[in-house]
């Protein structure tokens, strides 16, 4: 058994094979994406690695400008990376053309943040849910089967048959988001990228939609990439968590490892800044205060990109890019990786 507290300066490459010897459902390696040119070049993603197995949920956390939405677009094949690879079951979607590309698109779907803006107001729930079949004609070819499938999808997301002919304005926010989920499910995808799927919803309704998503995962085995700024939601839904800062993955690991023992100071600060429900625990005592705001992605700091706000930063952080420090996950699952010169150890006290 390796020592669980081992740290190494070099990251072992991400596993290229799943535990069963097959390639993982989704594997992203070294994905970099920049926009603009010359001095006005914005680095949205910088060498991002991630991996997703069948039926897994990967939580993607970070503040605005961290690159999580650009990453979602890359995963959906909407944005071609400048460097790095994206593989679904070993296949590069960016190399596909024509029918093959169309067939691949079925496998990766999206649920959007705002159920008020993402549904066409002139279409009924049934039309919205069945619309993907207009492009992917062979999924459910005949009209009668489509009607039946729409009823199944409505029931899967907890809507009634009678809802099929109602229009978006007749639904509440939570119900609209259910339609958005049913629509994403219409093509039987392997992966659904959920971009802040519950942020626009009221708390009491948010819990309903989270329950629908978890239930679908266990019933259909669909995998999620779950993007959210809400840490309590990510903690609840994800198997593994990836934390991003200014286009880079700065920490990754099993949900329990990352939340219970964050190693990167940014992750720790993010968690300490989120207010908690417990009135007897004052946020002020445990909060790690960060200076300032996220730097501009046009002008990323040298060395460690978090150093301008990091309470632990030293000279070395400006001079050298931080190494990936790795240790085995507590649950024997994924390695727990952080990109830091001075990672937090168990029980590290602040300041």
């Amino acid at each position, binding site marked *: 058994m390796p020592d669980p507290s081992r740290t190494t300066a070099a990251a072992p490459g991400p596993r290229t094979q799943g535990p069963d010897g097959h390639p993982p459902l989704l594997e992203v390696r070294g994905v970099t994406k920049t926009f603009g040119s010359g001095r006005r070049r914005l680095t949205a993603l910088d060498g991002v690695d991630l991996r997703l197995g069948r039926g897994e949920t990967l939580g993607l956390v970070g*503040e*605005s400008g961290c690159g999580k939405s650009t990453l979602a677009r890359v995963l959906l094949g909407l944005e071609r990376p400048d460097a790095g690879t994206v593989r679904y079951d070993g296949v590069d979607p960016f190399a596909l053309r024509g029918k093959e590309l169309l067939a691949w698109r079925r496998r990766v779907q999206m649920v959007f943040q705002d159920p008020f803006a993402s549904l066409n107001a002139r279409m009924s729930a049934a039309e919205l849910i069945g619309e993907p079949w207009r492009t992917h004609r062979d999924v459910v070819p005949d009209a009668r089967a489509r009607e039946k499938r729409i009823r199944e999808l409505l029931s899967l997301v907890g809507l009634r048959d009678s809802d099929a002919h109602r229009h978006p304005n007749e639904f*509440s*926010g*939570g*119900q609209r988001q259910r339609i958005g989920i049913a629509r994403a499910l219409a093509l039987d995808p392997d992966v659904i990228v959920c971009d802040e799927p519950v942020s626009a919803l*009221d*708390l*009491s*309704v*948010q*819990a*309903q939609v*989270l*329950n629908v998503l*978890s*239930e679908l995962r*266990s019933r259909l085995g669909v995998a999620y990439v779950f993007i959210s*700024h809400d*840490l*309590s*939601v990510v*903690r*609840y*839904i*994800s198997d593994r968590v990836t934390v991003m800062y200014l286009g880079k993955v700065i920490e990754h690991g099993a*949900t329990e490892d990352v939340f219970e023992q964050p190693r990167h100071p940014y992750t720790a*600060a*993010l968690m300490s*800044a*989120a*207010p*908690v*429900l*417990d*009135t*007897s625990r*004052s*946020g*002020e005592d445990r*909060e790690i*205060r*960060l200076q300032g*705001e*996220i730097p501009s992605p046009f002008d990323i700091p040298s060395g460690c990109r978090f150093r301008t706000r990091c309470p632990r930063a030293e000279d070395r952080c400006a001079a050298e890019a931080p190494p990936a420090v790795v240790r085995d996950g507590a649950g024997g699952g994924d390695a727990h990786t952080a990109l830091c010169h001075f990672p937090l150890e168990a029980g590290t006290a602040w300041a």
Partner: protein
Amino acid sequence: MTTTPAPPATEPALAVEGLCVDLSTVSGTVRAVDGVSFSVRRGRTLALLGESGCGKSMTALSVVGLLDPAAEVTAGAVRVRGQDTLRMSAAERRKLAGPVLSIVFQDALTALNPVQPVGRQIGEPFRIHRGLSRRQAEEKAIELMTRVGIPEPRQRAKSYPHQFSGGMRQRLLIAMAVALDPDVLIADEPTTALDVTVQAQIMRLLRDLQHERDMAVVLITHDLAVVAQRADDVVVMYAGTVVEQGPVHDVFTSPRHPYTRGLLDSVPEDAERGRPLPAVPGSPPELSAVPPGCVFQARCPMVRERCVRERPSLRGTGDGRSAACHFSEELDRA
């Protein structure tokens, strides 16, 4: 100025009594706020907690007199410094805006004038209420910008709102709101649009300013954790009515209204992964279809016949708490 002096600390700085607001819509008039009462003393923070459409923002806008023309206050009183602002003329009310009551909005970009340098906007209250010259007002603005943590305030005073980040814009708005040391500061979802780490900075700034200036703060929010961390007392609203109120710690540890309980249970914070969250079924009623009995009946797990027939009144329980539920004792025991 003819306004009476600031109230002593034992008197509420703001008291809202039986406030009702009607809203004209294409399909008729609906009651958006129905008999809301609360009060807050200087130095204390009261949270108005509720989901979208519960009437919390409408309540705040009524207090500062900024209601949309489609909405009308039909009953109630808003007392500050011994006067009912609802019975004042527009001119009298304007004199209160700044030195007595002020508000910080959620969306700082729309709340600031896009075509005026921020220094001039922040200085404006001093020119209007204190008659300072443009130059003196600008000096005051720079002092305030320093206080709220804007780096290089003298240069930045000449910048326009779009040249600031979201967090900095919220600081500017706060600077303007506290410029004249109001008795009462109303903050309407002041950090909702901000990132978590910036949100923490803004909440800390608000708290420091509150202590320094001994203000009463009314915090309007849908975020239970923000209430838990920041407020002394909480007023929980649902479908235009107050369903529960009391000290935050008491209400959050032993809620006496099933809606409050449902909200607290919906927070996934300590939920076990993979286990279904105890969600409140359904969604809040449309304002045009609020049922006659209890407003929460359609979603309540303990609803019975009496709840359909009779609307529960907000009953005090003698310990600074009250709840509008026929069967709140059952929750207390649970």
